[in-house]
């Protein structure tokens, strides 16, 4: 259900977003870019995919995020035997007060503002499709009846790049539904020390909710109001086009290792995430730096790499970096102008 939103000013937006990040930082040590990526998805109402080896705090991050915002939270642990109805919900036969029996729809865990889809690649494609359809349509159809999902609706999925046996990697079309994909890096030594201190001592300060659904709705609405200059939109397009090996602006690495470039959703993801990033940085307009900052998260899972990339150990991140090098920051295009 979409509730009418109260306007929020950019300062409050930045303040609340900063509070959310601070609350998460109470639990999650370091990983500032990862946290920022998740928050961007939250404020842009886009779905996030977190990929990392077990034990790096992916689930903990999303759980903490749900604690920092006062919204409905649902969690689904994806397993091979998970059925679509386990996610979307199903019709169950119930007795009413008059003793009559009738089918009642029992909502699945997807009926929440924030859904944690843990190890999403372990479910069967059928279950994945049900989940991803709900992500795209923001509604669920059961027994011929379409039921809208609550707004805001965000899916935060995780997947483990290891233990691939018995998993069902998400196809490209379904990966494209995630606005951003974040790689969860291994913590630094200092961060690990901090993690050890926090997790082996007394319980730390509890995470408090700093935003409710209404506030989140207002923030999401303001995110979409951030203006973007035309040359910056063009820059986002240029970045996406450069991921296509058949484009003249594509760098050599893309021509060699990429089979298919980003879909148009890549442009949408870049621009929308950059808007949130601009507000988080305290600016009312998008800058080229915002676009380029989110480009890696927005494009890394939208490129289909060839076997040459795997053979040469080239990652999607390497290719996005090549794209960023090939597409310079938009300038005046006049000799002598700063670049």
């Amino acid at each position, binding site marked *: 259900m979409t509730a009418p939103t109260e306007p929020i000013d950019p300062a409050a937006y930045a303040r609340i977003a900063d509070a959310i990040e601070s609350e998460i930082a109470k639990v999650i040590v370091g990983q500032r870019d990862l946290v920022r990526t998740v928050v961007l998805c939250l404020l842009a109402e886009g779905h996030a995919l977190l990929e990392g080896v077990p034990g790096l705090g992916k689930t903990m991050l999303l759980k903490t995020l749900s604690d920092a915002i006062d919204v409905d939270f649902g969690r689904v642990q994806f397993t091979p035997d998970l059925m679509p109805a386990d996610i979307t919900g199903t019709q169950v036969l119930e007795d009413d007060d008059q003793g009559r029996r009738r089918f009642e729809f029992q909502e699945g865990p997807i009926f929440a503002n924030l859904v944690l889809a843990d190890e999403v690649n372990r479910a069967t494609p059928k279950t994945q499709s049900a989940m991803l359809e709900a992500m795209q349509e923001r509604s669920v159809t059961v027994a011929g009846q379409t039921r809208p999902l609550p707004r805001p609706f965000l899916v935060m999925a995780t997947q483990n790049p290891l233990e691939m046996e018995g998993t069902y990697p998400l196809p490209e079309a379904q990966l494209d539904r995630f606005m951003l994909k974040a790689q969860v890096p291994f913590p630094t030594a200092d961060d690990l020390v901090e993690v050890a201190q926090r997790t082996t001592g007394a319980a730390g300060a509890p995470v408090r909710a700093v935003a409710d659904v209404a506030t989140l709705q207002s923030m999401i609405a303001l995110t979409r109001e951030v203006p*973007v200059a035309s040359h910056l939109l063009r820059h986002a397009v240029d970045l996406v086009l450069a991921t296509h090996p058949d484009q003249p602006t594509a760098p050599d690495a893309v021509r060699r290792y990429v089979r298919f470039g980003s879909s148009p959703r890549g442009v949408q993801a870049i621009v929308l995430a950059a808007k949130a990033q601009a507000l988080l940085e305290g600016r009312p307009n998008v*800058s080229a730096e915002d676009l380029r900052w989110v480009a890696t998260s927005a494009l890394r899972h939208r490129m289909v790499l060839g076997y040459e990339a795997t053979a040469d150990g080239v990652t999607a991140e390497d290719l996005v970096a090549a794209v960023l090098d090939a597409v310079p920051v938009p300038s005046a295009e006049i000799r002598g*102008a700063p670049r």
Partner: protein
Amino acid sequence: MRGVPVGDRPTAASLPTTRALLLATRRRLRLAWFVETVAMLAPFVAAASLLLVLAGRRWSWPWFEATGFGVLTGALLVLAVVAAVVPISLAQVARAADRGLDTHDALATALELEDAAGPLVLEVRARAEQAAVAEPSAAIPLHLRRGHRMGAALVVATVLLTVAGNPQEDRRAAAADEEAAVDDLAEALRDEAAELRDDPEATEQERAVAAELEQLAAEIDQLSDLEEAEQRLTAAQAELEAQQQSGLLSQKAATVGLERGLEADPLPGGAPGDGAAAQLEQVADELADLDEAERAALAERLEALAAAQAAGAPSTAAALADAAARLGEGDLAGASAALGEAASAHRAASDGVANQEAAAAGQRAIADARASGSSGEGQGDGDGDGDGDGDGDGDGDGDGDGQGEGEGQGEGEGQGEGEGQGSGQGQGQGQGSGGGGQGQVGGNQSTTGSGQGGQGTADGTGNSNVQPGDPANPSIWDPNAGTDGEQIDVDGTDVGGEQVTTGLGDGPTATTGAHVPLGDALTRYRERATRALDQSSIPPSLRALVRAYFDALAAS
């Protein structure tokens, strides 16, 4: 960040500070474009300029350095002009300023949203206005690039090489002098041609030669090689010289003498204003009208004229003699035909003389032009080589080759008194050039030996009844008249060296005092003066004065 109430819509699109900054930044951006382009091109342009200057030290073409600096300044000017006119939109300026000021595209976004509305538009404008207080120099910083340093180093090298002096300068100066000499030569030739053409007494042939000389001057004007110009002049002189014959003076004396003789004493039926040929034709037509005595007198006159023409105009003389003979024989028709031939021969001789004189005038004009050009060159050359060739032994062996040219002009006139009047006139003209040897003998002494002399032999015939002091027939003592020349020796100057300069010449060393009619002397002197006037050393104004003098004497 200063908050702006959401929903507060802008009422007026205005970015005064931002626009002012962008306008100033645009000028700065043009400067930056110029500076960066100079950095990019300076090494190449300066290298090209340096190469040209270096080429100027290798070759003598005088425009190398100027071209080098022209390339340099021209490139700078072109770049400056392009920088001033290269189209730069405010949107471009805003993007550049955003990069330079690190304003995160606030200026470009605000400029684009100047007329837009939205919850964050006022925020964007306010942020842009805050950022726009910066200086344009901060927005567009200028950097000294490696290209600037390289270009500057090359330019300095170019300037130093230019200032350091060029070994080619002497050659260039020589080439310039040579070109100036050619120009002077052409100008002098043009002046001479104009003088010849504008001379009021110039003949048609002389004007034609003047036109040819002007054409030659125009051709020389196009040359830059003095030697080639001299060769052209030499060739022209040779061509003109070829048109002249050795006996020009005698030919002229004969034709002019006939004209003047008949002018002074016309033939029967002729008038003083008629030319000699016309008088001959006239008398040829009127022979039948003459009586015996008149025919006899005419025959005698024609014989005298034939004798006078024998040396210079043999064809005329032959025709006149034939006419006299036939007249004496009473063959009027033959005499008439012979007179006609004489008239034709005289015309041909006169034309030939005019042509030769024109050629001579042209030759003199060329010589004068060369002299004028060479004098100018001499002034430029300074002191020249004073020591000469050294082997001049002072042997002025002036043996006087006796280029004596005797001109005899005899004229017998019948004045209708039945009295022969003859004037014997001998004119000796000899010139011996005793080799102008010049050499250094005993140090700085120089000697010049020359011999000059002449031998004149006049075989004047006739009886002169002119006596000195006769008021009716004024006479004048002519030292050259009726004398036999003698051999003379003209010694050279012995300056004590090993060689002795000796000049030998033949010339009249003794004269018999002879009184000749004043008219004859005047005619002769006038003739000499006329020849003298042909020398280019006499200014034109003085030539006219001399002619006027003799005209006045003749009239009196």
